[in-house]
């Protein structure tokens, strides 16, 4: 079941399913390896989130995290 990234728990393994943000943000996330189908892990979750995709650690703002749909890995 898909859910917004910001609702994931710390330590959870996820799969990125859908990026619903605007073109610029989608492009930037894609370049950083956060593409649909990529496996990730929530390293830290406060207001913002640290998501590990591959070997990349991404700090993502809460608002942006709301527009990224993920599912449990």
């Amino acid at each position: 079941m898909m859910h917004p990234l910001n609702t994931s728990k710390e330590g959870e393994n996820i799969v990125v399913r859908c990026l619903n943000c605007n073109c610029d943000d989608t492009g930037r996330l894609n370049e950083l390896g956060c593409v649909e189908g990529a496996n990730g892990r929530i390293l830290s979750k406060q207001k913002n989130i640290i998501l590990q995709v591959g070997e990349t650690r991404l700090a993502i703002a809460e608002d942006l995290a709301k527009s990224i749909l993920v599912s449990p890995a």
Partner: protein
Amino acid sequence: MSSEPLTIALVGNPNTGKSTIFNALTGLRQKIANYPGITVERKAGTTIIGGVLHKIIDLPGAYSLNYKKLDERIAYETLIGSYEHEEVPDLVLVIADASNLDRNLYLATQVMDLNMPVVLVLNMMDIAEQNGITINAEKISKALGIPVVPISAKNKEGIETLKKAIQDLDLTKPDPLKWVPSKALNKAIETVLDEWIEPYTQVPERARYIEALRLISEGEFNDPFYKFEQPGVGKKAIAKARKNIEDEGANPVALEVLQRYNFISDCTSGASSQNGQQKRTLTDKIDAVVTHKVAGPAIFALILLFMFQAIFSWATPFMDMIDLFFVEGGNWIANTLPPGMLNDLLVEGVIAGLGGVVIFIPQILFLFFFIYILEGTGYMARAAFVMDGFMTKVGLHGRSVVPLMSGFACAIPGIMAARTIENWRDRIITIMVLPFMACSARLPVYALLIAAFIPATTVLGVFTLQGITFFGLYIFGIVMAVAAAAVMKKIFPTGQQTPFIMELPSYKIPTWAVVFQNTAERGKVFVTEAGKIIVAISIVLWFLASFPKAGTEQYEAEASSTETIESFQLRHSFAGKFGKLIEPAIEPIGFDWKIGISLLTSFAAREVMVGTLNTIYSIGEEDGDHVTLKEKLINDINPETGKPVYSIATAISLMIFFALAMQCMSTIAIVKRETNSWKWPVAMFSYMTALAYICSFIAFQLISSW
């Protein structure tokens, strides 16, 4: 390889050790940035390979050729040969982080699409090994069709192999394997190429394919990078290409990315593997603490406190030595040269002015040393993450943290680093409040006044009152910046927010050679750039403070009984008259005419203040009676009142004025350049200086009456 000299470009994602490789190849000094996007400056150097001298260009870090920021665009323009200030590269070294291979190969495949000779350099092999990642460079080389060289630049491993790979490369046959776009994407590329780029643009041949992909992904061209004569045709072609993709059920924004990653995944499968379970790395463990909701900001504040305490305490012995050196040097020149105007100019103008600059080098070196360590370890990006929530609340952006932190060193690189903030409103607010951050130019003034007027009482057994005051001034600057940003947030329209996305690099021990080199470079820049101006202004000021000469008869007739002839001479000089003229305006904030002269000259650059005071207080000194400026300030007596010129209230008022006033011509010039308008620098100068006056007034009046 041809025996002709080549231009070799280094390109790679931020934090891949590009600068370290550049340093290893060229031996030249350069700036390292461990924070994504901060490597704005281009660096060039030379290296000898096989007896041939080649030029090396270190291009700004970029995640892809789909540039979003100015620095990325410069990298792109250079690679495709259309950047007017740079030679067209003959060879590209793509630097990739071996511990994060797939992500780094994204840029590599884009560069390969430019049909240029490419060597893939897998850096940080040691970190990859530590993380249990095994890479078969030969297999990746075969899969990509380009030479692949594994190295560990930090440990200087593999540099010779890299040089040999460059030497052995056949430049005439760049034949990298290419990813094959899907049918739908291929058709879209052809549409944009045939209907727009080839017939209507001057996009260089090698860049056409990649430019078509960029346009399809972005949906339109919105900057006049190329002089498009018929933009309407281009927009139609792009829309048509995107529709083709959408009709096939795909997303034109993501299609290229997905297909590239599929290609990369095919290339690295079997060539790169991770041993065992994903274990909790050291970076994970450190991040759990330093990015913690409560501990994170507390650690950030502690780091700042430690940094400023250390700057103040550790630098003191060196400063005392320099001070003594200039005092003794001044005495020696005064006694060696025959008496005369040149003697006075050298001792009271040049030596005093120069001494006022050089004395602060230890503190500036310590400040930059800490900043480079924070960058080099990867902590800067965490600081941005930790502070983003707070920053957003006050009208700034998480990305503002790095420009603001850079502002501790100097507002100018900070203002330039604000380019990484994509949203105009966030960017302009960051620029407008950035000069409140206590830059290194304020440091000499703070250091002088604190050392002279704040007692060195120990607090909590570890800190001194002087160190805490010093820290307090930095915090005061931050608080004022935050308050000003909060006000500006209400004034400026919101517009579209740019969300915070940032890569957090792995923690690593900084490359000490680079930290020391860069720190020394900053010290050199301070002496050569600021120093030249300070010494020049000191000389002019010495003349203004020495002429017209007041005679002994005039002194005897007009001076009060407590006034010395030197003080009388200064008061009657051009500078003295000017200081007296503005004295009524600055008296309410506790300043006398001597401080007034220093304030005026410090509008050129803040650090000029100390040189000016040094010059003013040296005028008329007898040979051999040179004492330090600190002592002169403490002992300065107002001849009219008979009281000390500098009280605690004056010192605090002066420090507050310096903390808030916009006294830097270079900052004003850079704000004008970055905003392309005089509106912002004028507004900045006006509101900051007015605020400084009001706050100094309140502080002086309150403390005086207390």
